Each structure stands twice: as structure tokens, then as C-alpha cells.
């Protein structure tokens, strides 16, 4: 019984070891497996067609719930949900309106805002940077929130923004990442926030080599280079993935939309032993204040997705 009710996860094209988003999901489901001893099925898609193939296949084999990772899987989940109405589906980063689908979306802009505040405060030059993977709406949402945070803390600050590329290797090009980071350092930036998957590895390395700060994304990447990793913007996909399996297992799984922001604990910034020394009391106070104000609604962080614009 347990065997054919195995939960399943379908990773997207980056692969489960992409050092950020997919890997967060992987960490979450691994935690579930270790805790409960329940195995799960998994698949990494290699082309767009395999998304639907994988979702259907998982459902066919009786997997429940089926977790789809990433916005690109929306249409595959939708079709799967229609074809297998008895199976529970969860999708992360996108909303699919079906009775048997749970959609989990994050307010990345809130977290980006927070790390933007921290970046502006840590910067001595008043110049900070952003490195995105590809110029797509999701990354623009990160960028826009970040810029607002920076300006919130220092209205006169400059933000340099770069995108890595236009092919899938944009998410996996640490060499380019390092060059983008160096170009921003050259122009005076001294803190860079990377939202670029594996490309970020190069950004963090460049920060370390040049004695500047970098900010990680999705999972807590502070441990990579203690001393130069200022913080990481946490998007708790691991928690979301873990909760999905867990709730499905104990029967508390509910369809519908979950929007996870600062308030819900789905988004946060990372403070641990690796970066404690970098955070001054003033920064700490400012971060706590900004966080509280966002949660209370005093600060409304603009969501790029709401109007496809990022007001200056």
C-alpha cells in the first residue's frame, strides 16, 4: 500500500542539484523521507514535453500527492489534474485553479526588499548590484523588490542589474556569473544579490576573491563563504515541499492557493553563525523594523507581477 501511494516530485529543467530552487525542494522532500521513512518517486525533466509525461506517469503509478516544481509545469499539472481527479497535485510558484490542485506561491519581492535594505546598509560606496539568471518575470520580481529595499534604506543608492543569458545555460554559468559580479565591483558596487541558480556560485566566489559581499538566494547559502556572504534571501521551498508531503500524509492537505510571504514564514532572510559577525546592531534593528512593517502592511512592497512594471 505504502509503496504505490508513494508521493512524487517532478523537478524542472535545472535539475534537483541546481543549488537553489529545485535543490530546495529536494532538501524538503529528503527531510520528509528521512523523518518518515516513506520513499518518494522523482524525475528531472529534460525537455518541455517531459513535464506532462512525468506528471501523468506519476499519477498513473498511483503516486499521491504529485509535486510539480516551478512555474513552467503549470499546464502539465492542469492537464494531469483533469485526467486524474482523484490524485492530489501541488505546484510551486504558479497558480492552477483545479479542485485537486494546491498552488503555493511566494512573495519573493518581500524577501528581496529585506535583503535590499541590508545591502544598502552594508554598502560603503552606495552602490549595490543584482545578478539575475534570465530576464523573465520571476527574476524581475526579485529585482524590483530588491531595488525598492535598497532605495528604502538609502534613497540615493545606485543599483546595477545584470542578466546572465538567454539560453538554459544562463542558470548554470558560474564563469559568466563571476564576470558579471566583477564588472559590478569594478563600477563600485560592493554588495551583490544573485538570483541566478548555479550562476550564483560564480558571483559568490567573485565576491570572496574581491573581498566584497554577496547575498544568496532561495536556500541558505551563507555557509559557502563565511565572511563575505552577507546573508541569503530565503524562499522556503524546502518547507513548502516538506509540508506538502507531510500534510498529504497526515490528511491535512488542502487544495487552493497558499501565498507565502514574510508573515507566513515562507520568505525570510538568513542569519546564522556564518554571517552573524557581519550584521551590525543598526542593521539588525533596521531589518527587524522593515520586516515588521511589511508584515503589518505599513510598507507595501510592489509586486512586479501585479502590473508588469517596476516603478522607479
Amino acid at each position, binding site marked *: 500500500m505504502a509503496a504505490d501511494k508513494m508521493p512524487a516530485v517532478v523537478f524542472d529543467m535545472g535539475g534537483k542539484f541546481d543549488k537553489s530552487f529545485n535543490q530546495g525542494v529536494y532538501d524538503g522532500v529528503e527531510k520528509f523521507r528521512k523523518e518518515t521513512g516513506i520513499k518518494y518517486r522523482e*524525475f528531472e525533466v529534460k*525537455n518541455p514535453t517531459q513535464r*506532462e509525461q512525468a506528471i*501523468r506517469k506519476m499519477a498513473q503509478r498511483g503516486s499521491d500527492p504529485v509535486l510539480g516544481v516551478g512555474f*513552467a509545469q503549470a*499546464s502539465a499539472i492542469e492537464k494531469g489534474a483533469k485526467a486524474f481527479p482523484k490524485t492530489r497535485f501541488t505546484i510551486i510558484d504558479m497558480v492552477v485553479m483545479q479542485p485537486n490542485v494546491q498552488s503555493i506561491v511566494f512573495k519573493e519581492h518581500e524577501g528581496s526588499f529585506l535583503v535590499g535594505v541590508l545591502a544598502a546598509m552594508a554598502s560603503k560606496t552606495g552602490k549595490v548590484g543584482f545578478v539575475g539568471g534570465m530576464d*523573465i*518575470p520571476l527574476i524581475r520580481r526579485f529585482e524590483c523588490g530588491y531595488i525598492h529595499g535598497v532605495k528604502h534604506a538609502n534613497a540615493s543608492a545606485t543599483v546595477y542589474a545584470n542578466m546572465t543569458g*538567454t*539560453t538554459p545555460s544562463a542558470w548554470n554559468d558560474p564563469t559568466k556569473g563571476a564576470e558579471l559580479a566583477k564588472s559590478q565591483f569594478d563600477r563600485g558596487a560592493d554588495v551583490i544579490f544573485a538570483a541566478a541558480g548555479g550562476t550564483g556560485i560564480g558571483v559568490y566566489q567573485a565576491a570572496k576573491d574581491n573581498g566584497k559581499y554577496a547575498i544568496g538566494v532561495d536556500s541558505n547559502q551563507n555557509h559557502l563563504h563565511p565572511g563575505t556572504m552577507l546573508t541569503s534571501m530565503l524562499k522556503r521551498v524546502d518547507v513548502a515541499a516538506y509540508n506538502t508531503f507531510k500534510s498529504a500524509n497526515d490528511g491535512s492537505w488542502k487544495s487552493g492557493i497558499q501565498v507565502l510571504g514574510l508573515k507566513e514564514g515562507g520568505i525570510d532572510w538568513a542569519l546564522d553563525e556564518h554571517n552573524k559577525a557581519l550584521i551590525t546592531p543598526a542593521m539588525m534593528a533596521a531589518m527587524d523594523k522593515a520586516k515588521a512593517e511589511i508584515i503589518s502592511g505599513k510598507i507595501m512592497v510592489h509586486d512586479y507581477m501585479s502590473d508588469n512594471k517596476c516603478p522607479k
Partner: protein
Amino acid sequence: MADPSSKLPTWVDVGLLPLINVALAFVVSGLLIAALGQDPFEATWIMLRGAFGYEESLGYTFYYTTNFIFTGLAVAVAFHAGLFNIGGEGQAYIGGLGVAIACLALDQYLPFGLLLPICILAAALFGAGWAFIPAYLLAKRGSHVVITTIMFNFIAASLMVYLLVNVMIKPGQMSPESREFTSNAWLPYMHEVLGWFGWEVAQSPLNLSLLWALVCCVLVWGLIWHTRWGYEIRAVGANADAAVYAGISPSKIIILAMCLSGALSGFVGINEIMGVQHRLLLDFAAGYGFTGIAVSLMGRNHPVGIILAALLFGALYQGGAELAFENSAFSPDLIVVIQGLVVLFSGALSYMLRGPMERLYLRLSPGRLVEG
């Protein structure tokens, strides 16, 4: 397809030897799998079953085959004109753009029957258009077509991201995709078509494009070997001086062959955009254009060989996916390695066994040695 310098009968040369080569690739893969601590026999079995074992798997295998036939033919046509078109990837991508534009513009007004030829034409025109620029630059300016087509792959990727993020995206959506076409613009799936004839088969992305791919094989075969245009293409490819002597304009032929090649690549858009995805999205070309190079060369630039090589790659793609489904210990990268080995043994090392085979054959049938 038979190599004239071979002393072996055709069935050995184009039948048995390739089989042995593929088998050899699998033996090496098996050793690797065993070295990684897995059971190679189980893996082989899963792959074979996953590629051919049941209706759905066959559907997927043939669906991939369709893409590879298009891109393989594309490389072959250019190759016959002496051109190395590495731009199949970009041409397929842009071909898909053409299909999507046609569908988005017309799917609310035209029925499927009218839309289909328009879309085929759009795929061909866009793919050909994307190949035309490198072709023109080669013909008129002598720009090296390998470089320009590589560059055009990158340029196509940038263009598509720009269009999908800024222009064609369905508003308010996270994913850089166009809206879904209305069902007027959906190419019927093979399982639907067979269903009309009362033959129920499992659902798969295989659609009518496969038939179009086979038609293209026949057309390319006829064109290259049985028309004067094919004659001219081959003449330019084999000996440009002689072609000029014969009154053939190499520039025209270069442009013709590259545009045909681009059009064939563009048809990947028919299979992917009209047949499967029903919307325009990022990266749907997924390397099919690059794999087309191996398909074409392994198929010795002949449609029959291309069909077989495309089938082999289709089976590897689908069988490989199945392997990853069945056992997550088989990482998708293992399949990539197996693909590499297959290309190595049945493509690059395809003559390795011919010498020993010839000796064996001559020993077994000494009477066949031709007297001079």
C-alpha cells in the same frame, strides 16, 4: 547508402554492422552501469521496454523521432550542397515562432483545415528566413557558415526571450509563454486519429507531424536524387568548379539549400508548438537541432538512414526517460552518456569493425573474391 569502397554485401554493410556497433555501445554502457553499482541487464531491459514496450512508450519514441527526422534531414540537405549547417537549433526555434504567430493570429478565425497549411508554410518560411541570412552572407560575402549559424543560434535564443517576456507573454502570468491556442490550431494526436478509426491506443504526444516528417523524407529523397535541383545541389557540394562549368550558380544553390535546410528545421515547430505544447514557450527546441547533426551523419545523409538514426535517438530519449522514472539511481546523465557512446560507436567508429568483418566474410566465402 552503401559505401562503394566496401567489399561487403549491402545487408552486412548497412544492416549487420550498424547493429553490432550499437550493441557495442550498449556493452560499454553496461560496463559503466555495472561500475556504478547497478544492474546493466535490468537497465537495458527497462530502456528497451521503455522505448518500444507498450503503446505509450512507442508514441513518445516516435514523437522524438519526428523531431530528429526534421533536423536530420535539414543537416543532410545542407550537407549535400557542401554546407555544414549548425544552425538547426535556432532555425527550429524560429520556425516555432512562425507557427505560433500564425496560430495566435488566426486560431479564432480559421478552421484547422485552413490553419494547417498556413502553419506549415509559416514554419518553413521562418526557419528558412533564419537560415537565409547566413546563406546570403556566405554566398555574397564568403562569411563562414559554421560561425554564422552558431551565432544565429544565440541570436535566436535572445530574440525568443525578448519576444516571450515582453511581447507574446500572456499578461499577468509568471511563465514566459504565450496564451494557449484554441483547439482549431491543435494538430490531432495520433491516438485521436487512430481513435476515429476505432483503434484505441494510449495517449502520447505523437501527432500527425510524424506523417509530415515521413513525407518530407520522401520529398527530400526525390529532390536530392531525382530532380535537377537536387542534381545541382549535389554538383555544387561535390565540385563547385564543375558546377560553374555546368552553368549552375553556386550562390543560388547555397541559398536554396540553406533555406530548404532551415525550412526542414522549422518543422520542429509544427511538431512541438502545434502538435504538443499548443503555445509558444522557451527552449522547446531542447537540443533537437544539435542532435540532428549526429542523426544526419549517422544516417549517412540519406533519408532512410536518417529515419533509422532518428528512431535510435528517439528510443534513447524515451528509453532513457523511462530508466530515470523506474529507478532514480539511474540519473538522467547516464542516458546522456549512453547517447554519447552510441554516437561514438555507431557514428565515429562505424568503420572499426569493417576490416575484421571483411576478412571474416572473405574467409567464409572465398569464392566471392573478385578476379581482376
